[in-house]
């Protein structure tokens, strides 16, 4: 996973509440057993007038020429609610989104972001609106700088502090792979499991194919 320290980019505001994962990646767009090939289906029902024919909706923010290359998304409350599909994050990632700023996130979506090196940062809605208004004035020129080392956003006046948990911050900064991290605790897990099976033998199911 790519570490994320400082990211500067063009901003796309999508200031709706409850943007769900069906909207981020409609179920029809998950066509292959793969994490790839999803960027094109990102927000397909909003982004295209006809999702099958891929006719772009000129009014949708990610299609606006002045928002070209957007890599920071501004969202409303309860961002990423709905289905747990990680495809939503893979689609955002492939499209080039690195940071999402929203008042709050669905817990599973939030974890999926971190697992894929995307920063889900919490910021009160009024502050998000202000940032959006500032980028409206000159979308290509007014880029935001998101500094994960200091948990601050620069651009549009005084830097604002955003909220991200300590553990998530470190994972993103180092680009840590979870499995590798947990492998270092294998002995502790084994000991825990031994105790659990000893105390509650019913927890353990028989091994083998003819179960």
């Amino acid at each position, binding site marked *: 996973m790519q570490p994320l320290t400082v990211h500067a980019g063009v901003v796309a505001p999508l200031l709706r509440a409850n943007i769900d994962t069906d909207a981020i990646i409609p179920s029809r767009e998950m066509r292959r057993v793969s994490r790839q090939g999803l960027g094109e289906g990102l927000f397909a029902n909003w982004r295209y007038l006809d999702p099958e024919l891929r006719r772009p909706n000129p009014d949708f923010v990610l299609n606006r020429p002045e928002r070209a290359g957007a890599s920071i998304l501004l969202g409303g409350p309860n961002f990423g609610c709905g289905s747990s*599909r990680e495809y939503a994050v893979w689609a955002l990632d492939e499209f080039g989104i690195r940071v999402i700023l929203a008042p709050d996130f669905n817990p599973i979506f939030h974890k999926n972001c971190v697992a894929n090196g995307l920063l889900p940062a919490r910021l009160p809605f009024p502050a998000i609106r202000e940032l959006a208004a500032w980028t409206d004035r000159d979308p290509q020129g007014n880029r935001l700088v998101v500094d994960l080392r200091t948990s601050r956003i620069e651009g549009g006046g005084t830097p604002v502090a955003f909220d991200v948990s300590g553990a998530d911050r470190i994972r993103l900064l180092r680009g840590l792979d979870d499995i590798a991290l947990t492998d270092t605790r294998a002995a502790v897990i084994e000991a825990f499991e031994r105790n659990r099976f000893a105390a509650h033998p019913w927890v353990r*199911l028989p091994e083998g194919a003819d179960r």
Partner: protein
Amino acid sequence: MPSSLFDKLWDSHCVETDDDGVSLLYVDRVVMHERTGSVALDTLLRRGRPVRRPEHVFCVVDHVVDTRPGRGDETQAPGGRDFIVALRQGAAAFGLRMFDVDDQDQGITHLVSAEQGIALPGLSIVCPDSHTCTLGALGTLAFGIGTSELQHVLATSTLRMAKPDTMRVVIDGRLGAHATAKDLALYLIGAYGTGGAGGAAVEFAGEAVARMDTEARMTLCNMAAEFGAATAVIAPDEAVLKSVVAAPLAPARVGDWSALRSDCGARFDREVDLDAAAIGPQVTWGTSPEQCAPVRARVPAATTTAARRSLAYMGLEPGTPLDSVPIDAAFVGSCTNARIGDLRAAARVLEGRPGAPGVAAVCVPGSRRVKRAAEAEGLDRVFVEAGFEWREPGCSMCFFAGGETFGAGKRVISTTNRNFEERQGPGVRSHLASPGVVAASAVCGRIAAPDAL
């Protein structure tokens, strides 16, 4: 110190907690479906990483599998077949028990977990699906996870997560004659919003919950996902414990489950009280589960941009009586409301009544077991005589993944849990309600409460 049920479940699975407050949680059981599980297994295979405890891992097809009679691997979803085949290949490669398309116990993942005894009181279970919280109704510590997390659990038998806050929702009083756990869930979400739980682990308690059977408890916990909860739990009572030990994978000798309840004086980060007696049949009018109202209410005035947008999508005018809104289709199915009790409730309303002309209606039993039980009671005939299609188990029109839909612009009354734009297919307008309300609406051709008949 007195602890809550959630605290007890958490503590009994917590391997360790690091300085940042992130815990390693031991996972007893893993269940996955073809949509999200296939990718995880495929990734592990490519990386040459084994599944640590294959005997505790289960695969189920439900998300893209076709539900029309005589189905095989082909589905109406683009590439749908590939997901089924990939799951099958992954299951075979790792030696995982799979409930395949033609398995006599196949069904929607969460129903299969409960019916088979994969989920049991006191166990922890994860599934890459947001409605895994359904299983909290059995006193199971259940989490919906993402695909990367699933890979982590398969490889290490643990889940990495910070302990969520706790919230108790106490529902006192008794539900009225035509109100159900579904109406309670919709009411709760309507009152507190889809972010109402704020990521907390929710315990449902109180008289109305104590009176619920296992199935109704599952309906309530199911919709904790729409309430913004990390998960849900209910202390299992005698009836629940009796039902779970009959499951095929429940061991002959199980442990002592009597401590699976919140101690007197247990502390919760938040508490909410509801009065069940005040809640009648509900129906959603918008594109979020929180946009709901009593069936006999009117479409509310649109005071926010979100509400205006929802009403525009739904094609509804403020002030319209909800029970005057004509419907094109009715759907009984999903992990929310497709257990035998749900089918019985719908059938009670349908019995001896023809469906309204022009209304397309579909019933998808939640599992093969449910389907068999329903057929043994003759419920299939009641549905068919009322104009319903009687299908094979799967998620079906709960969402569009299998490519199944009533068609663009159709207004659907549905026992499912999500009414998002396009959730049930392009342009489809979804109204969420209980099985009784869906059945009554199918008979009347408009949104209707069961007592309107």
